[in-house]
């Protein structure tokens, strides 16, 4: 996998990124590369800086050092919405729906603002039809006209993913998209995320559920206390003594 990332231009290239909150260093010199179409799992104990890294890539947080490149362009100083236009979409750890809007309207907002409303020559569907297809794709069509505040936890997770997909990203960042779901629900959502690969979308997934991580990841990255301690094939990484130490102690 290391070879493939070196031969083709990486889609996302995080170089020596540092992020501090006052005197606390949340990320120190973190490097991360995501190749086009690659599925990368990001794990680490609580407070290791996973969400901070995601927030730095998506632009919610400004980095204090290093650089973030997307498709060869330095995007370190772009505001979040501009990064969405470039092709980075994310879902939030705790679903953040537009709560006064219906499921359908939630998707429409993203279609209208992410730069994904333009029809290409081979796609003559109207924006409404595309929104409908996305809603159908995540299995929320029966709830299409329900106000999003009335959705259940699984449905909110689906909506969160559907909105990210509606931005037509080149890379999707799923921040604990499976948290708080039951076994069958985990599989359902995971299938949705795995399906992104067929569309050529790279996915960076933060997750605690190890079975899901192992099923999902082509490559696994481990953060501990703001440092990257492992990056490689999932099987190798989970057998890495340092990783075991970080999770289980000495």
């Amino acid at each position, binding site marked *: 996998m290391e070879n493939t990332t070196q031969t083709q231009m990486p889609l996302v290239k995080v170089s020596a990124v540092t992020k501090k909150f006052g005197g606390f260093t949340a990320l120190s010199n973190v490097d991360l590369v995501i190749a086009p179409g690659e599925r990368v799992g990001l794990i680490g104990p609580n407070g290791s800086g996973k969400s901070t890294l995601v927030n730095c890539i998506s632009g919610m947080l400004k980095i204090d050092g290093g650089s973030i490149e997307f498709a060869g362009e330095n995007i370190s100083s772009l505001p*979040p919405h501009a990064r*969405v236009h470039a092709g980075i979409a994310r879902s939030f750890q705790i679903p953040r729906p537009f709560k006064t809007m219906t499921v359908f*309207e939630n998707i429409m*907002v993203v279609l209208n*603002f992410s*730069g994904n409303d333009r029809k290409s020559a081979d796609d003559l569907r109207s924006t409404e039809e595309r929104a409908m297809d996305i809603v159908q794709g995540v299995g929320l069509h029966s709830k299409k006209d329900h106000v999003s505040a009335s959705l259940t936890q699984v449905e909110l997770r689906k909506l969160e993913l559907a909105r990210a997909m509606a931005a037509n990203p080149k890379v999707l960042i799923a921040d604990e998209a499976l948290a708080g779901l039951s076994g069958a629900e985990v599989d359902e959502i995971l299938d949705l995320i795995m399906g992104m690969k067929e569309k050529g979308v790279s996915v960076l997934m933060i997750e605690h559920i190890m079975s899901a991580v192992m099923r999902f990841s082509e490559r696994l990255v481990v953060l501990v206390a703001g440092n990257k301690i492992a990056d490689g094939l999932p099987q190798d990484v989970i057998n890495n003594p340092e990783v075991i130490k970080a999770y289980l102690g000495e």
Partner: protein
Amino acid sequence: MNKNRNFYLGLVLVLPLLASLPFWVQSEYFFFAAYSVLQFVILAVAWNILGGYAGYVNFGSAAFFAIGAYSTIVGYKLHFPQGANILLGTFMAGLVGLGMGYITLRLKGVFFSIATLAMSVVLLTIVTNTPFLGGARGVYVIVSRESPVGTGPYIHWLYFLILAMAVVSVIISRIIEHSWLGQGLMAIRDDEMAAEGLGVPTLKLKLIATSISGALMGLAGTTFPYLITYVEPTATFNLSFAVNSIAMPIVGGLGTWIGPLLGALLLGSIQQIASVTLSSSWNLLIVGGVLVLFVTLAPNGLVGFFKKWSGK
């Protein structure tokens, strides 16, 4: 589309009726009262564009209104025609809206509101200390006795003007509500971080909203000097403008074009009636009372109440 047709059909039916009032209503006072109510319609509708759609509570409505009024004073002193003064005031208030937005929109919630209140105080101080604008003493505007379109007294003309301005404001507000701009602003209101994180250029949309909202509030103020003919800071920066432009959308229903319209018609009319039957010093008390009543009994305003009542 159907809704659009109904709206413009309603407008075509109601507008001639309102425009014909000067031809068969005798009382001149009626038009002063109607002017006041329509002025509040503009303020409420304008406030709602930022406060109702985007959820940013602006306490500085009086400042924007005053910018409109004092722009007219400047234009008047420079012998500009009335139409030019109206455009000037609207433009200036829009510009200040843009500037204020740029400075304050990084603030959230109550901090933004306090910043707008502070802006109002700053502008009041500037006006009070600028002799060209009349300072604390105020400045007179001389208007003709008759309406330039020959229907009778000058107030008829002002009534036509404010009616047209109110209609324009309501149409603009309604267009925004059903456009991508309204959709984006509502996304900001619901969750600004999620909106930004999903591609909504939040700062740009908020700046557009403060500019339009400010411009319309200024518009409401541009003809004020012609109405009272004596402009001084306390009347122009009056608390009643700031309070009413917040209370009216809340009472009518936030975040819809019709809510502020209904709220302004209701609260504006009650205040005018109270001014005649009791005393105008009751006005703010009435606004406060009605507001408390609505917040506790019908928190979604008249619009929410009707929706619930009709079971939709």
